[in-house]
């Protein structure tokens, strides 16, 4: 395995790690920012596959517009993370609506 395919392998592992982190993290704003990092990483993966147009579109849209839309919706919904499983750990962080 030469150096280029090794770096390709590492990028794919980082992609899976960011995707896992984006859905495991309880804080919603952190999840949205990690999703932005995931989107940028997958744009780099498209660049490895020589799809330059798709890489540009994904970097502009996924890391830019989609993140802005998610953060806007997060700010409008006041960011209640209501994953009920770890709710006791986040008791002091913010109270529920009802």
């Amino acid at each position, binding site marked *: 395995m030469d150096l280029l395919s090794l770096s390709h392998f590492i990028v794919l592992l980082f992609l899976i790690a960011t995707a896992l982190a984006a859905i495991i993290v309880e804080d919603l704003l952190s999840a949205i920012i990690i999703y932005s990092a995931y989107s940028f990483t997958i744009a780099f993966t498209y660049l490895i596959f020589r799809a330059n147009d798709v890489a540009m579109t994904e970097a*502009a*849209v996924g890391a830019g517009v989609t993140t802005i839309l998610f953060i806007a919706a997060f700010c409008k919904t006041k960011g209640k993370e209501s994953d009920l499983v770890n709710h006791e750990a986040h008791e002091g962080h913010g109270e529920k609506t009802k």
Partner: protein
Amino acid sequence: MNNSLIVKVVSQKMVPFIIMLGASIILHGAATPGGGFQGGVVIGAAYILFALGIDAKTARLRLPVIKVKIVESAGVLIYAFTGLGGILLGSNFLANKIVLFPPQGEPGGLFGGGTLIPITIGVGIHVACTVASLYYAFVEYEGEPKPDKETE
């Protein structure tokens, strides 16, 4: 909105350069990777940066919603009328290179693509105004009604 001075000044000074980057991406859409959608998103992001740096109401005064909607419709109409030009010159809808609708240049040049350049400019205008409209719809909506406690 009480942004710091650095954020306010830098976000205002960076806007023309970002718009020039987006225009470059749009105008070279037929020759290099990139095109109307990518450059349009970059220009819309420049507007979002402008609106985030200063007050949202001031940004809306600079670029009113009704003008955004008109220009957004005009972008799609540029595309459609470019296609209709093919019909007027005696060929199919969206015909290219047969009817020589704009004068052809060298392949790889800025105007080498025939109808590609007007179509790309139309799509770029449309997408830039679309991103600005989405920003209007999502961010700048104030005075929302509080969630009703007695809904259940």
